């Protein structure tokens, strides 16, 4: 596993912990909708940036 992937796993653990803990503590009465939508958008953005370099090598190497 590359260093970049190790960081990703750590971030994933943090996001998942927030996903389960925050709605049952801080935003239980109000704000859960915005929290879950925000967390999902953050994950989607992470996905975009994490995979941004994918495929760059294959153009150069002609895979």
């Amino acid at each position: 596993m590359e260093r970049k992937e190790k960081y990703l796993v750590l971030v994933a653990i943090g996001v998942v912990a927030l996903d389960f803990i925050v709605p049952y503590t801080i935003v239980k009465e109000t704000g859960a909708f915005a929290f879950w939508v925000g967390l999902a958008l953050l994950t989607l953005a992470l996905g975009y940036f994490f995979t941004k370099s994918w495929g760059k090598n294959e153009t150069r190497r002609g895979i």
Partner: protein
Amino acid sequence: MSASILICSILVWFGLGAFLSWKAKKKNALSMAEYFLGNRSIGGFLSSMTYSATTYSAFMMVGLVGITYKTGITSLGFELSYLIGTVFLLMLFAPRYWSAGKAFNVVTPSEMLSVRYEKPRVGVAAAILCLVMLIPYASVQLMGAGYLLETLSGGTISFTTATVIIALMSFVFSWWAGIRSVALTDALQASIMLIASIMLAFFIAFTLLPEAGESITTINPNNMKVSWPFHMFLGLTLPWFFFAVTNPQVVQRLYIPKNITSIRNMILGFSFFGFVYTLLCVFFGISASKLLPGIPAADKAMPRLLSMVPHPLALIVTLSIIAAAVSTMNSIILTLSSMFGRDILKALNPHLSEQKELILSKTLIPVITGICLVFAQYKFSMIAILSSMASGGLLMQLPSIWGTFFWKKATAEGAFWSIVIGGISVGTMYITGAKPLGIWPPVWGIAVSFLVFVALSLFTTPPPSTDIFMDRLKKELKNF
């Protein structure tokens, strides 16, 4: 809704899908990889559409809308947790499945386990678990679409007729060219799923609920609290969180992209689709709770909502729900057929030629479709239990899947028994309704499965070619 208009629309839809399915056939498939994986040459757009349509079933527009109607916003957390988990898992596992699949010519998800652990019985155990768990799940797709058509036609289209039409559609949409047919028809079906939902959302927002303001949160503030008990949230969310690596019909799609850019486009396209579709379905549930309070059966929320919209829109949304059911069902059946051929028949008879293997696997498509149809007709009460435990049962593959790519000390014994003991444990708990300490079966099951996997792996010997597998994978991953 008029039954004749409904039937005519379904026939037109059927004709369009059948044409695409037939059109996808370029030449006679001679290999398992061509028929079931499109020779690993599917582009990013089609990969993302088939991944999305396979993942999101009729559950979204009927079940999720109903749960949201009844219990409020926690269902959004449940469904978005699935999306969050899937995006992270795809970033880690998609490159590995794709690279190893290509390097070792793997066709099915369970075959990956057989190759890595060098024992076909590991793949056999995983394939049997998938067959047991997914046939009832596929039958429920049939039943859901059958009930919907029966209800909307006012009984003119009987449940049996409706399920036969859906089963036939599912078969025809996949038969001619396997995954190529499925990918093309899935693109059509995913499009109508998204377009119909957006149209319905606009109609609700501007015509039925214009006073609600600009935010979903003001429609019905009572439904915006986290209402599920934590054990329930964890028990339902955990199996779905790992869906992307434990459900074979989506894992098999990780083998099909033609290159690394296509894998990325598949992940990003699916992320966008999943996010938008989830928000729309939750919006429908919240809106229905405001517009139609007091419906006793929550699953009726969407059909009742459709009775409030103009007929052409209701018809398009109905077709989109049928599309969601068909696209999930035929993908499951296609994957199970390939697993039956590759992981069970080939394991029993290693000298089976690829051509015979393909013929036998293809024969399984109508056979499994027929089994699902029979299951749906009898409406076995057991089907409800089996389908609800599908995701929980499939979760028992997680330790062996993780070990395949990330743990060199993992052994065939650990993988095999973690699937068998985990599967039996979770199945027994679901059937008996046991929830020790109030904790749901998948949570106990995955703990048992991991314990067995780690303990047995530490006391047995890893496969002799573990280093070769891992080194080859490491080399392939450098391309990302």
